[in-house]
């Protein structure tokens, strides 16, 4: 009888361990829950030792209609498809059309844009394609 009880407790110990493990797994698998439409742009940032840039659509569309960037400034509807570089921004192209200290704060605030977790690939966060087809993003801290 004693023998069986020990075996039983061993079972439960194993079960408890598995439970704890699964909870931790669940926590480490925690999906990113950033704002819908946030774009991570990492064409060149990582390679240059900077954090990827994060573009929040929600913040900008409160202030400007889609037309301003996508018709007037020539931003293509494609994450990472515009080959934006700091040189172009300082030249007044792309982000630099507004982030020039006149319409919006200027490029000396590096960390406000370069605020993404290192190692994240270029993507539109939370897109339907991403949800249904290919999860591109795994947390960088889970190597």
């Amino acid at each position, binding site marked *: 009888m004693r023998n069986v009880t020990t075996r039983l407790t061993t079972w439960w110990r194993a079960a408890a361990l598995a439970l704890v493990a699964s909870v931790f797994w*669940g926590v480490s698998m*925690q999906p990113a829950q950033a704002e819908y439409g946030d774009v991570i742009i990492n064409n060149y940032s990582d390679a240059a030792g900077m954090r990827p840039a994060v573009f929040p659509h929600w913040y900008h*569309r409160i202030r400007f209609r889609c*037309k301003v960037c996508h*018709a007037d400034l020539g931003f293509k509807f494609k994450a990472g498809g515009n080959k934006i570089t700091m040189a172009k921004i300082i030249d007044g192209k792309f982000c630099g059309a507004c982030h020039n200290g006149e319409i919006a704060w200027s490029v000396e605030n590096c960390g406000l844009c370069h605020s993404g*977790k290192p190692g994240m690939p270029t993507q539109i966060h939370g897109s339907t*394609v991403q949800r249904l087809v290919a999860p591109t993003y795994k947390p960088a801290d889970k190597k």
Partner: protein
Amino acid sequence: MNKTIRKIAVAAGFAAAVVLPLSGMAAEVPVSSAEVTGSTPAQLKVSNANVFNRLLKKEKDPNAAPWEDGIHDPENEATHALQPPKVAYEGWPRTPFGNHVDWVKALNDGLINPRYDRVDPTVEPLVMDLDIVRPVRASVPDVVFPHKPHTQWLHCSNCHPKIFIPQKGANQINMSAILLGKKCGVCHGKVAFPITTKSCKKCHSKPKPADWKPPLSEASVKNPWR
């Protein structure tokens, strides 16, 4: 006696093996499953197998602040200077998908007034109120494409002619293309409201005519034994 206990032990082990991976899957967020199911009084000490998230609900904070949203680096000092979306969305009409706010309504209610020109805040958008109805062969409600909300936000050249030929019915559109990011999916599912089971009716908004019948499938039309 011994045998029964062993059987129970094996059964319990099996149940644990089956339920644990599932509960692990459901527990994608650090919320106790009791909180998710909302059915277990807190004072009860029920085993975890019984508070298993049976609806596989994903409890998540849809408008997390930048430093806890999983994509911004909280170790970056400037991340903490960014505005949390919840602060901006205060008092806006909500939706159960996307940014969880109704941008069209927020604009029409005057809660926001985004510029249509980069520098001149007085430029008015070129709004065109033209609905395009697209009858759908499947038994879902027909699609109404409203030019009005689109031209409030966008310019004609954003869609015509690269995404859509400006002629009624000249464009082949289907859900597969949209879900893969083509046609309406160039915007919907990325920045404009996404395709979820809760948003179908936004596009599929026109009920079928009263005399509408689903088309018979060819296999049954051709069946000589009907």
